[in-house]
Structure formats: C-alpha cells, structure tokens
C-alpha cells in the first residue's frame, strides 16, 4: 500500500531535520574534543539530551498517534502535539483529569482502560467520536499501556489515541451493504426491486451517485434493454430533490418505507432509458462490452474514449460515468450505469469497488425476483385453468341436474295437462268445473314453459352454415385418419382441381360425412389398397369422388346401403351412410354409388355451390 502523501512528506521533513541536528552535534563534539573544560562538556551533554528529546518528539509526532501520560490520579502529565491537534486543545491539558479532556463517560467504570491498567489488568479499548482541530469528525480508539518504574511498579500509564476513522468508514460501508442486501433479498416484486436498487445507487446515504440507469438482458431477443432510470432530469430538479432530502434526514429505513414507485417514472431520463435497446452482439457499445467482459468499466473521458460511441455519450450527456455488470450465477443479467452529472464529482475506484459488491448482490436479488415472477405466472395460469375447470364442471353438473329434474317433472305434467284437456271437451252443467279445468290447463302450460327454458340450458348451439372450402376439410379429415390409413396399408392419392369454389355449409357436418365415407372405403379394403380422392368443379356444383379398389358392393345390397340401421358389418350400427346422405341432402346435394365387381366402388358426392335457401335447415325435421 502506498504511504499517505502527507505522511511521507512529514517523514521527509523530519529526516531532513534530524540530519541537520546530527551534523550540528558532530561539530559540537569535535569542538568538545579540542577543549578540556568540564563545565563545557556537561553543558554539551545537556545540549545533546535536549537535542535527543527534540528528535524523539519529532519522531513521536510522525507516528500519527495521539499520546499522553497519566499519573495514578489519572491526571495528564505529558501529551504530544498530535494529541493537542486532534482534541483541538487551546489550553494546556497538563494537570487536568483525562476524562475532562476526552469528555469521556467511562470514568469510575470497569471499562476505563487507564484505571484497569493501574489495577494490574489488561486495558480494554474504547472507541469515541471526536471533532478535531480541522473540524473533521474522527473516530478514535484509546489504548492504555502501563509504564513500570525501576521497582516494577506501575507509576504512570501511556494512553495511545489511534485514528480509526477510515476503518470505521469501511465497516460502516460493509454494514450498509449488508443491510441493503437484506432489503433486496426480501423484495420479490421485480419492479419494486429494480427501483430499490437504483434508489440505493443514487441515495446520498448509500452510494450517492447523481443518476443511475439499469439495463436487463433479454435472452429471447438477444438484446440489452433499458428498464429503469432514477435521478433528477435537470440541475434545478436535482437541487430541489437534495434540498428536500437533507431537510428530511432520510435514513435507509425511511428510504425503503417511502419508496414511491410512481415517483420518477415519468421523468424524461427514465423514458429515454426505457427506449434504449442494444444488440448483445454489438460490442462497440460500452454497456454491451461491460456485459461481455463481466467487469466494471469506469469511463473518465467519454469524448476521447474509443469504447464509448457518440450516440451513447450524447444520450447520457456526461463525460464521466461507470458501468457495472449485474452478474448472477456467472452470467451477466444486466448492466447498471451511474454518473455524477450535476455535482461533477470524480468517480473513485473505491466507490466503484464497493458499488460492484452491491451490484453483485443486486443481481442475485433480480435473478430471484425473476424466478419468482415466472413461478407466480405459472401458478396464476394453473389457478385460472383450475377455476375454469371447476366452473365448467359445475355448469355441467347444473345442466345434468336440471335436465334430470325437468324430465322427471315433464312426464307427469304431460299427463295432468293432457287429461285436463281431454276433460274440457265434455260439457258440464256446472260452469265452475269448466273454469277449474281451464285453470289446470293454464298452470300446466306455465310450468312447461319454465321447463323448456331449463332444458334449453345445456343444449349445444345450432349448426351454422358458413362459406366452406371443401378441399380444406378433406385435407384435415385425411390428416385425422393418417394413422388409420397407415395401419390398414392404404395408399391415399389426392387429386383436387385448383379454384374449387366455397360452398355454404356446416364444416363439422361435412367433416362427419367425409369421415364416414373414407371409413367405409377403407373397410372395403381389408388387405390394403389404393384410395383416390378427387374434387372437381361441375356446372353449378362441386363433385367429390371417393374411389376404392376393394371388394365391391353386391347389387342386392347396393339398393339398401342408405337405409338406416342397414349394415353388413358385424359391428356396424348401420347409420353412417344414412346420416351422410341426410347431411348431403340437407346441403342440397346428392350421393351416387357405382360398384363394379372386382374393380371397387366409387362414391360421388355432389354439393351445389350456391345452396338453395330453405331446403336445409336443421330445425325442420326432415322426412325420410
């Protein structure tokens, strides 16, 4: 460690002084040898002693430690110059009690180091704050050292007063760092945390930078994104803020308490920061360079520093700033940029090294908060899914419950109302009977109306006809059946004409038809085969061929295949083709079948391009 400049200067002076003194001494001694007069010699000895004492005093001064001797009454018998300076003494302290001079409260207690030493115990160290001659607050430690006389008794105590301001400052900083760290680790809300971090960087109580800006790495887009900036936008604002702060005497605790997240949000500085985005591959930018190098970078002269682009310097508007990377688990997650734009105070290495320690903790806290946020999002998604599930299950339960109750009530209602109606056909001599029957009929009607409302609750919405592209539906149906085709060893060949027009139809129903038809075709080829699907445009309709080369349909069966419940398959229901035909007819179309023995079967569906309105509505129950 280099010696303090002041100290080394002082040592030099003292050394020079000592050399001059010894030169004088040598000259005197030579003189002494020349003469024989004893008194002169004794006066020479006195002189030498005086000189030696002066030299000792000088050396003692250089040590930079306050010294004083106390007698058994704890009165000061001697003190050095440093002692005078530090305690800012105008009058001589000699003969005064030490606690009066030190303004010390330890007198008479066990912790008084001087008293302990006189009693033969080890002297403890006490620490106090004093205001020195140069009006500087100093932290000092007092150490008592016993001084023994020839008989081995302690007749006086030397008090060493040591300046511990610097080490005290370091301890204070470390404590602060710890407190900030604790506060950060306790904050899981990401926005709050970022704000807290930058507030610490800018608060006078902590790091005292004028402004600070935080960037976070966005891995998805491979960029470094400006997230938040804290600090006054102009000198006037800065003065105003500092004035307020100094009048408030904010402590760290107060800062946390009063941390207002809306504050500073709309500042031009913050807005500018949020618009800053740099690609992570662009290492010409100092922030990116810092993120890649994972080391803090102090820029002293931005104008002449090749690491700073002109744009970045202009955006910041300052010539001296520091970039510190946020590193969590050996990976850079962001960068903090801080400057002293208003005070112009130089950024020292010391400040940066302690800032770096802080920023490392901040990075871990951000990492935690981000993980927490991801977890929170996942939990929210889960909760939402669960909520929907419960809601739909509850709806289903209500639906089935209400439908059960409704049907159980509907049956007896039909009987009651029906018989009442039957009764009303008779003529009664008493008009009251007729009136009463009518009341029964009306009330039953009212109940039935309520039941209709309930049972409609769980009903699916009616199919709607929309512009439908048949080719698209066919492709989707084939995708649906892909595995089935493979399993059955079916080779599918699609042959769709270009520009097949849309038809008006219900895509779900048409898909159902295609599914039935393809299924039938595959079942006709138990040992595999070729399946051709052709879609083409006819005059005012489109035609869809489904051609298999499997076993053909016998003539006597062919005329029945569209009849409901007619089936030749052992597990068939016999409704597939009849429903298909019904759907196609509902769409104003037709199905035609040709089957040639030994060649296979061709099913041709015809669907009109412009459906005839009114022909096909699901509301009307069609006749068979």
């Amino acid at each position, binding site marked *: 460690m280099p010696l303090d400049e002041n100290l080394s200067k002082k040592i030099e002076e003292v050394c020079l002084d000592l050399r001059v003194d010894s030169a004088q001494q040598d000259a005197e001694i030579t003189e002494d040898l020349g003469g024989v007069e004893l008194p002169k010699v004794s006066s020479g000895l006195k002189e030498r002693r005086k000189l030696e004492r002066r030299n000792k005093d000088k050396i003692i001064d250089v040590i930079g430690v306050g010294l004083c001797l106390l007698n058994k009454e704890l009165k000061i018998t001697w003190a050095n110059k440093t002692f005078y300076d530090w305690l800012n003494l105008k009058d001589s302290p000699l003969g005064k009690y030490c606690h009066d001079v030190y303004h010390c409260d330890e007198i008479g207690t066990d912790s008084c180091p001087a008293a302990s030493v006189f009693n033969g115990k080890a002297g403890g160290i006490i620490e106090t704050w004093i205001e020195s001659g140069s009006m500087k607050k100093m932290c000092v430690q007092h150490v008592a050292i016993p001084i023994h006389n020839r008989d081995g008794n302690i007749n006086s105590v030397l008090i060493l007063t040591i300046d511990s301001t610097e080490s005290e400052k370091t301890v204070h900083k470390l404590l602060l760092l710890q407190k900030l760290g604790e506060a950060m680790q306790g904050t899981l809300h990401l926005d709050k945390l970022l704000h807290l971090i930058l507030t610490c960087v800018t608060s006078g109580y902590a790091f005292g930078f004028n402004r600070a800006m935080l960037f976070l790495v966005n891995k998805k887009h491979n960029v470094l994104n400006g997230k938040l900036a804290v600090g006054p936008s102009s000198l006037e604002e800065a003065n105003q803020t500092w004035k307020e702060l100094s009048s408030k005497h904010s402590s760290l605790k107060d800062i946390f308490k009063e941390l207002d997240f809306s504050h500073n949000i709309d500042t031009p500085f913050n807005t500018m920061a949020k618009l800053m985005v740099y690609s992570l591959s662009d290492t010409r930018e100092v922030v990116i360079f810092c993120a890649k190098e994972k080391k803090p970078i102090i820029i002293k002269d931005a104008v002449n520093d090749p690491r700073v682009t002109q744009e970045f310097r202009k955006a910041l508007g300052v010539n001296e700033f520091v970039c510190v990377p946020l590193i969590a688990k050996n990976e850079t997650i962001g960068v903090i940029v801080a400057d002293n734009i208003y005070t112009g105070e130089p950024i020292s290495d010391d400040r940066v090294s302690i800032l770096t320690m802080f920023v490392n903790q901040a990075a871990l806290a951000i990492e935690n908060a981000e993980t927490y946020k991801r977890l929170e999002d996942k939990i929210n998604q889960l909760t939402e899914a669960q909520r929907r599930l419960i809601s739909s299950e509850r709806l289903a339960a209500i639906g089935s419950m209400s439908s059960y109750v409704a049907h159980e009530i509907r049956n007896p209602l039909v009987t009651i109302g*029906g018989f009442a109606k*039957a009764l009303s056909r008779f003529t009664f001599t008493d008009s009251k009977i007729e009136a009463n029957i009518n009341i029964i009929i009306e009330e039953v009607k009212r109940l039935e109306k309520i039941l209709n409302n309930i049972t409609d609750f769980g009903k699916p919405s009616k199919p709607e006809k929309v512009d439908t592209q048949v080719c698209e539906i066919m492709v989707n149906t084939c995708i649906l059946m892909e595995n089935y085709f493979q399993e059955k060893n079916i080779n599918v060949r699609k042959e769709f004409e270009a520009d097949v027009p849309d038809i008006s139809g219900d895509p779900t129903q048409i898909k159902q038809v295609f599914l039935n038809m393809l299924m039938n075709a595959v079942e006709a080829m138990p040992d595999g085969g070729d399946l051709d699907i052709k879609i083409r445009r006819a005059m005012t309709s489109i035609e869809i061929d489904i051609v298999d080369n499997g076993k053909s349909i016998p003539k006597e069966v062919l005329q029945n295949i569209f009849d409901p*419940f007619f089936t030749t398959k052992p597990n068939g229901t016999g409704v597939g083709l009849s429903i298909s035909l019904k759907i196609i007819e509902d769409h104003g179309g037709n199905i035609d079948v040709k089957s040639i023995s030994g060649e296979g079967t061709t099913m041709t569906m015809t669907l009109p391009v412009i459906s005839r309105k009114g022909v096909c509505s699901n509301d009307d129950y069609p006749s068979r």
Partner: protein
Amino acid sequence: MTTILLVEDDKNQRLLYEQELKHDGYDVVTASDGKEALEKVQKQLPDIVIMDINMPKMDGIEAMGRILSKNKAIPVIINTAYTNYKDSFMSWVADAYVVKSSELSELKGKIKEVLANKAKDS
C-alpha cells in the same frame, strides 16, 4: 282403419295417448317397453309407431333400430320428454321428433304429416 303402435312406459300417459288417439279415430295398440313393441310390430303390423325413448328393458332408440332393420317401411315418430336426443345422429333416422307436451296437437299434426308422406311414397 289406421293402426298406431304406442310405445310408452308411463301407465297414465299411455292411457292419455290411447284415449286421445282413439278419440281422433285411430286404432291404438300399446306397448310398455321396447321388447313388447317388437312383438306387437310383428303381430299387429301397425301403420305407424309412436316411440318413447327412456324405457326399461329396451330403450326406444334400440327398439326403433330393430323395427326399421326388419321393416323399414314403418314410419316412427319419437315422442320424448328429452330435447337432447334431437341432436343425436341416432334419432335422425326417425321420421319425426316430438318433445312431449300437454298440448297434444303437435304430435297429432306430425302423425298426419308422416302418414300422408307414406301414402305419397307408396
């Protein structure tokens, strides 16, 4: 004389429909479940079947399937308290679907309509 096979498990309702349809001049044969309906179809050869769905032993849909697979010329009208079977593909093969109501005019109307269609086809 037109013969109607009425399949209905509820005793009182069966009585109601029988009375009403007889009043309208139909010949009415009744069955109280799907199995009985199959037997009556074979014996009586009705002109039309009115079929309830929820019944013990054999439900109306199954009974309808069996009747139609043997004799597809017999028209079937589904008459049920349930509206949801209306959307089922299975019930689409019936000639008509009527939701039970104390107002019997809808059922009566459908019977006439279906019988008229049958007469036209044959």
